[in-house]
């Protein structure tokens, strides 16, 4: 994830440097990138070890699953919906897919990945159908599927667990191998997030999600197939959670029925920290991923600085509130600016 992503590419050539900085500062993700940069720089200046390959690897390993989940959640949240079932879907996918190794020795890793994605997709499709056709609030539907999917998981798993010995080495190596100290996994996830962000930003169906989030009524009147788009967003979020489940299994190696419990609110937290408005209409997948990265970085930074980990949660919560308040501030100033401009045009 490079900072340059944030700069709008359609910047006209020859713009004065003042306007350039203005545009950069105005980019939505600027705040979160600045916070992350300051945080990392301060930590490094106190404890240079923070910049070591090992630390970076550790942070990336802990962040990838969340950043991936944040991508799916972003698609749902920008359309003014919410998916609370991601943690349960991740858990179900993690167990079912990784248990395939024990049941069918020698099974191909791609098959396992496909199985995980398929399980997630099925859950996402169920969510999407209920929200889109039933026209019922997604918060209630996905709260229900959170319980149901976890319940199914518990029924299937019982007291069993998948243990590391049944998993092939090449599977366990997925989150660990890498190039130049950066795990392949992080690169793949970054690419996925980039693709997702590009889709949301530049494809018609992606833009439609923002339109629906800004004003559902207006989106419907404008002829956007609201139901179909909502369905797609939930299906995608489910499939992504399924994929995240397989990666989770590769990373943690021991999988019981509690995998991913409570992740839903952490993912939403990361998304909100990353500048995605909770009631839709604005924010980007890149921002959400950086939000996940920031929350992951805090944990590691406190550890490296020798600050007791008991401060983690409070700092993360505080940051979250700051992010929400900042987001509101930007929105208010933007509205004021737009009003001023339209008033100027009128006179």
């Amino acid at each position, binding site marked *: 994830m490079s900072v340059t992503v944030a700069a709008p590419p359609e910047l006209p050539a020859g713009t004065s440097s003042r306007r350039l900085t203005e545009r950069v500062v105005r980019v939505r993700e600027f705040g979160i990138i600045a916070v992350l940069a300051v945080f990392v720089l301060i930590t490094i200046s106190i404890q240079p070890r923070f910049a070591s390959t090992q630390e970076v690897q550790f942070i990336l390993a802990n962040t990838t699953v969340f950043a991936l989940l944040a991508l799916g959640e972003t698609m749902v949240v920008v359309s003014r919906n*919410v998916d609370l079932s991601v943690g349960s879907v991740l858990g179900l996918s993690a167990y079912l897919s990784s248990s395939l190794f024990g049941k069918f020795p020698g099974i191909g890793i791609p098959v396992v990945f496909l199985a995980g994605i398929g399980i997630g997709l099925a859950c996402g499709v169920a969510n999407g159908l209920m929200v889109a056709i039933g026209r019922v609030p997604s918060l209630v539907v996905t709260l229900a599927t959170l319980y*149901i999917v976890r*319940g199914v998981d518990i029924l299937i798993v019982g007291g069993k667990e998948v243990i590391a010995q049944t998993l092939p080495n090449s599977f366990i190596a997925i989150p660990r191998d890498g190039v130049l100290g950066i795990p392949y996994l992080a690169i793949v996830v970054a690419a996925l997030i980039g693709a997702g962000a590009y889709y949301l930003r530049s494809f018609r169906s992606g833009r439609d999600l923002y339109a629906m989030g800004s004003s559902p009524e207006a989106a419907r009147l404008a002829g956007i197939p609201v139901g179909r788009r909502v369905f797609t967003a939930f299906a995608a979020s489910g499939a992504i959670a399924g994929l995240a489940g397989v990666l989770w299994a590769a990373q943690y190696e021991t999988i019981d029925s509690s995998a991913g419990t409570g992740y839903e609110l952490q993912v939403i937290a990361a998304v909100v920290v990353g500048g995605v408005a909770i009631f839709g209409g604005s924010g980007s997948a890149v921002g959400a991923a950086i939000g996940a990265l920031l929350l992951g970085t805090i944990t590691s930074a406190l550890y490296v600085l020798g600050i007791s980990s008991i401060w983690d949660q409070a700092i993360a919560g505080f940051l979250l509130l700051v992010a929400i308040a900042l987001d509101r501030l930007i929105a208010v100033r933007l509205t004021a600016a737009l009003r001023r401009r339209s008033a100027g045009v009128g006179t």
Partner: protein
Amino acid sequence: MSEPDRKPAGRADGGGRRAGQALLPLLRPAMRWETGLAVLVLAIGVFGALASPEFLTSGNIFNVELNLGEVAIMALPMTLIIISGEIDLSVASMLGMSSALLGFLWARHWPMLAIFVAVAALGAAAGLFNGLLVTRLGLPSLAVTIGTLTLYRGIALIILGPNTISNFPAPYATIGVLGVPHTNITWSIAIFAVLAVIFAVVLHATPAGRSIYAMGASTEAALFSGIRVKRIKTMLFVVSGLVCALAGVLWTFRLTTAVWNNGIGLELNVVAVVLFAGVSIFGGKGTLAGVVLALLAFAGIQNALLLTNFNQEATGIVIGGLLLISVFVPKAASAAGRLRAAIRLGGQP
């Protein structure tokens, strides 16, 4: 949150009322969600009694009460907050924070009365912080309380660290074993009953209660009719903080354990109960009678499944299924009503 379907539904309702004036008032009580819940509670009672001779024994009922107490208590302010159009996801963290403070101060030999005052003050302050962020800064409560969920849990961890405090003295530490004297009622349920009456009176029989419905149905309209929306919402969050502090104290004494992660993840259970009770997530709809029935249904199902050797942790399937029913049945009913009204209106002229 806005409900896209509210306007057409309201219009259809008006039409339905005109068309079937004679019959509808008689049918209305039978069509209420609360009636369905009452039938469900009865059915669970009968099923449980038939399935297990243990179900209706006093010992089992006492256990059900114990497990239900804190969630039931926290569901009361949550109901009012959701009806007013907001949500409070920080309830379980406020419970945990109160529990941590209780343990921390007890380990420092504070007198119990002073501890209660401190815990109540902390709860109220936590609620006030939520309320101010929501009403004065105009931030969405869903996002704010996810933030304070993390923050308050973090503060609980800072207060108590990884320690566990469990040497609470007898009159307090036995509330998980002994109920109100001469009855089969736990202290937590007794407190819940008193609070439920107070909350019901406030919500259903005072101007403040009516204005809670009004602001849930339309904040704008409530503001224009002179309701102090911000003040009332702030008050609701403060009350939620206070009540969660109380729940935290009860939780701590019931398990005789103060630890930072007490009650972690409970917030979604509380929300699920309230939504199952027929309270609309968009605000403006729902009753406390429904919440009491929903609590009974939840507790009954969980217990019946436990006694019938169903994997107890998998009761989530049933809870989730009921939650889905609670949104789809009224939706289908209103769609059917709209259809009926449309047919009647179409047939009249």
